[in-house]
């Protein structure tokens, strides 16, 4: 049935999942109302400030770039100020200018274009610029609208303080109202283990955490490593096998576990890693309990934060500066004076965390005319979202 397909998409990884229903903006109703202008008897929540920023930036973009001739240009050698000829005349025309010389006007126009489209800065003409111009304004407008839809999945009031994790840019942003007060690099899930889009309230932090490994990861990744590495590997990695997920679960010795059965899936095993050096959660984890097992946490392996592409986790979000987040969440430094595992510190304020995925977003949400950040669609979600929005039943 046609509808089944649409529902599969609706429930897929292209939409926001609400851990706390209070954060749901009721988008379906709101969009229908907007489309139909049904304003009587309705109290429609205003757009959140990210949506508003998208709207302003889109209007500016349309006025500045969409009205220009959208002629296709040929790629070629790099051209700089002072160049002249037919190719320059075509590029001038494409950018709304008339000349066959690469003069200061064209240089300024190119500089603007590069900034708005998140291309490397400069005023030269190269194939990257030509490719972008050839994609045309319609391409970018569609991309902006698609990402505006993602902003509309967030509630009208984002919160006095909130955390925005943008999986596409692999960054975490800490906001107080509309003000960005801090940001950091994060590591997100691989394309095979994508970090889902989630909205929920941050509940508590855990010092000296265990890493409780989900049973599918134990089966698919760690059982084989334990079989190959034996007890030495098991002990060196500070693993503990447990009889179950209950509070009073019994710790099993290495030899009490049938590791082949665990790997084959015949036995579901609770495996955890003791706190301390090398723990998968580092020294602190930030919890907003959810059915995806996705959280924010520290790591003892800081090297990957230097990479541009940091989509390497099993779905969780690893933080470059976890203590910066902890200080901000709790309003003070939370410390442990002992080595007791799993020390819970509640978050007193109601602080939402939004994990979203913006492949395009205004560079400065408070100054939407500064152009857009363009990110790689690491999970291929744009195509699926566009298809779902344009043709929900096909």
């Amino acid at each position, binding site marked *: 049935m046609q*509808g*089944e397909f649409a529902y599969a998409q609706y429930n897929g990884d292209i939409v926001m999942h609400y851990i706390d229903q209070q954060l749901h903006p009721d988008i379906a109703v709101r969009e229908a109302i907007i*489309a*139909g202008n049904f304003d009587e008897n309705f109290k429609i929540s205003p757009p959140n400030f990210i949506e508003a920023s998208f709207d302003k930036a889109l209007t500016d973009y349309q006025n500045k770039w969409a009205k220009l001739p959208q002629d296709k240009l040929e790629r070629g050698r790099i051209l700089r100020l002072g160049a002249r000829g037919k190719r320059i005349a075509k590029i001038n025309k494409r950018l709304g200018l008339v000349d066959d010389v690469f003069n200061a006007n064209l240089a300024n126009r190119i500089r603007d274009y590069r900034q708005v489209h998140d291309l490397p800065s400069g005023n030269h003409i190269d194939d990257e610029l030509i490719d972008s111009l050839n994609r045309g304004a319609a391409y970018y407008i569609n991309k902006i609208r698609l990402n505006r839809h993602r902003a509309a999945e967030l509630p009208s009031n984002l919160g006095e303080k909130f955390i925005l994790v943008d999986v596409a840019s692999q960054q975490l942003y800490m906001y107080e109202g509309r003000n960005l007060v801090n940001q950091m690099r994060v590591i997100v899930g691989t394309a095979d283990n994508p970090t889902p889009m989630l909205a929920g309230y941050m509940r508590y932090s855990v010092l000296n955490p265990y890493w409780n490994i989900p*049973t599918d990861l134990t089966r698919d990744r760690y059982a084989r490593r334990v079989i190959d590495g034996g007890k030495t590997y098991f002990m060196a990695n500070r693993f503990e096998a447990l009889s179950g997920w209950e509070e009073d679960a019994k710790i099993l010795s290495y030899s009490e576990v049938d590791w082949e059965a665990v790997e084959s899936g015949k036995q579901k095993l609770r495996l955890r890693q003791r706190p301390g050096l090398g723990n998968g959660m580092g020294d602190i984890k930030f919890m907003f309990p959810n059915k995806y*097992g996705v959280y924010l946490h520290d790591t003892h392996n800081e090297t990957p934060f230097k990479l541009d592409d940091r989509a390497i986790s099993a779905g969780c979000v690893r933080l470059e500066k976890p203590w910066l987040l902890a200080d901000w969440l709790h309003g003070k430094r939370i410390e442990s004076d002992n080595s007791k595992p799993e020390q819970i510190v509640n978050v007193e304020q109601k602080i939402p965390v939004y994990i979203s995925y913006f492949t395009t977003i205004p560079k400065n949400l408070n100054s939407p005319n500064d152009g857009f950040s363009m990110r790689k669609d690491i999970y291929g979600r744009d195509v699926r979202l566009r298809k779902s929005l344009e043709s929900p039943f096909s």
Partner: protein
Amino acid sequence: MNYKLGLITMLAAPILAMNPAQAQEQTGQELIGRTVDVQFANGARNSVAFGSSGQARITAADGTLSNANWFVRSNQLCMQMGAMSECWGYNQRFEAGRALTMASTCNETSQWIARSVNPTPAIAPPAVEQGERG
């Protein structure tokens, strides 16, 4: 919907008697991504596919396709097509295969049968994954 029907501005009462437990606020959640067959009193038949962002696609018996918008408010299921709109009393969840007789605001009655529905969402607390994915 049979869009040859007149436009409606007033809420009509649903035909089915409701017990108090059923008389709860409807959201349309069960219809998202699902198709409902509608039979009108004059014999006309349509099927309506409900999209996830308020879009609806209506297929007439002769295969003609129309696009519309849909939304739910105050226990009315409303369809809007261009400048026209029409609402039906909607006081209970749809169930797959079960006919609901619904009255629209121009006192037209029609029978609605959902081919399938979405399950009732878990409200709280949400299921929690055992473990952290890392």
